[in-house]
């Protein structure tokens, strides 16, 4: 009985938080179209986010491309399908691995950063200070960050895809001796719009989710300094879960249309 009660309570809690999150998202859409636009702050955020995660995303992408090709190459050879390797690698990376891995890394890197930064601004009353000085802190802090992640994650994903494909090419050229030209001809020949458009579209949603959840957790941070850690941590965990859900939905939707 007690167990059931706790279960019900936690489900209700969860639903309530979901409701708050969607109100938060609603507020974003109301504020994003209203003047004044914080253009400079938006640019600064974009720059910071790109700057902060470029190396990480690049290195991870490269290694993924490398490892993925190394792992699948023997099997492909065994099946006599070595010629298919570039197209298989490129389709898996562009459609799935690149977007989700990059988004997960950015959830850890950028999402937690937003949660911690806004959280500490909340507990040290900096957000209140903005409010009383007549600047709308939601616009200045939250809207700019959500927009920045929504714009930057797709760019980072494209770069990560490119670097991963390059990593894969390196393996191929060392082990199988193909030219750069030939390899990438194969790659582009196998990629259709069907692969690229939905894969790119979903990265905007990934970016939005990272900014939204990070800002939500930070903006409503409670319980002093300890709460800042909790905010950063929950932001990462919840964003990661949300990313998988979104990815699943994206695949379902794509499936309906094609």
């Amino acid at each position: 009985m007690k167990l059931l009660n706790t279960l019900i309570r936690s489900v209700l809690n969860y639903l309530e938080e979901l409701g708050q999150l969607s109100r938060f998202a609603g507020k974003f859409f109301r504020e994003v179209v209203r003047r004044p636009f914080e253009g400079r702050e938006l640019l600064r955020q974009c720059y910071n986010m790109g700057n902060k995660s470029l190396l990480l995303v690049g290195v991870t992408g490269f290694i993924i491309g490398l490892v993925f090709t190394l792992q699948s190459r023997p099997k492909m050879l065994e099946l006599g399908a070595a010629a298919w390797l570039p197209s298989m690698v490129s389709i898996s990376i562009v459609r799935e691995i690149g977007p989700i891995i990059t988004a997960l890394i950015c959830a850890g890197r950028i999402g937690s950063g937003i949660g911690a930064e806004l959280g500490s601004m909340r507990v040290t009353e900096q957000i209140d200070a903005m409010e009383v000085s007549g600047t709308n802190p939601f616009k200045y802090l939250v809207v700019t960050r959500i927009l920045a992640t929504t714009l930057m994650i797709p760019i980072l994903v494209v770069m990560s895809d490119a670097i991963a494909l390059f990593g894969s090419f390196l393996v191929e050229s060392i082990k199988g001796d193909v030219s750069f030209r030939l390899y990438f001809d194969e790659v582009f020949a196998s990629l259709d719009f069907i692969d690229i458009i939905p894969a790119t579209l979903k990265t905007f949603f990934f970016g939005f989710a990272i900014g939204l959840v990070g800002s939500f957790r930070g903006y409503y941070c409670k319980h002093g300094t300890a709460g800042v850690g909790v905010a950063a941590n929950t932001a990462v965990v919840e964003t990661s879960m949300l990313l998988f859900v979104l990815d699943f939905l994206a695949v379902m939707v794509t499936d309906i249309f094609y």
Partner: protein
Amino acid sequence: MPKNPIYENRKPVITIRGLKKTFGQNAVLNGFDMDLYEGETLVIMGKSGSGKSVMIKCLIGLETHDAGTINIMGRDMENVSEDELRDIRTEVGFLFQGSALYDSMTVRENLEFPLRRHKRKFGGISDTTPMVIEVLESVGLAHAIDLMPEELSGGMKRRIALARTLILRPRIILYDEPTTGLDPITSKEIVLLMKSIQQKYSTSSIVITHDVDCARFISDRMILLVDGVNYAEGTFAELDASADPKVQAFFKS
């Protein structure tokens, strides 16, 4: 209502009546009344957790109150538009208990930040540097203009926060425990600074403090906040002489 004749001709700039605020089961304010008269410094004392910060946050609209009325310079806070609220907030400065400097910005950027939305008030100024330097000089920290908040001591932070409040030329300043966490000498400096600002810009102020010396030095009038109501009001001398044990408790130590 003030018994003191010096208030008879003055008009109140802030009026609070029957302010109530409850957090869950915790009734913090139970019908708090207050008037702030033009040009006076009103000190509010109360035990830690008695709701002083909550009261002042309701006043400026950072917290919503459950019941009661708040009137600032003739405008009811219950039904102001967002634009009006922003205008009121240029007239009412707030010094936060923990300074609340923006720690990703330099001192200069901290001071320029409030000007972003209020250039209108100063006739569309384009170069803010003279204003920044002027307020920094009035708090004695002109040399700190390019430092980051983390490079400042607690006392310096408090002064910069005060400068950030002053840059909008408020007519009313709310100080939330301006001397808490500072050593006695620095506290004294801050209190002197508050006094000189009060004279220089002829502001009205509400000062929340535990510091009896600060209260004695700066107050024109005092209110003791006990159990969520204005338990006692009067000048420092009047309250100090009171026989009520709850009032005495503040002055004994």
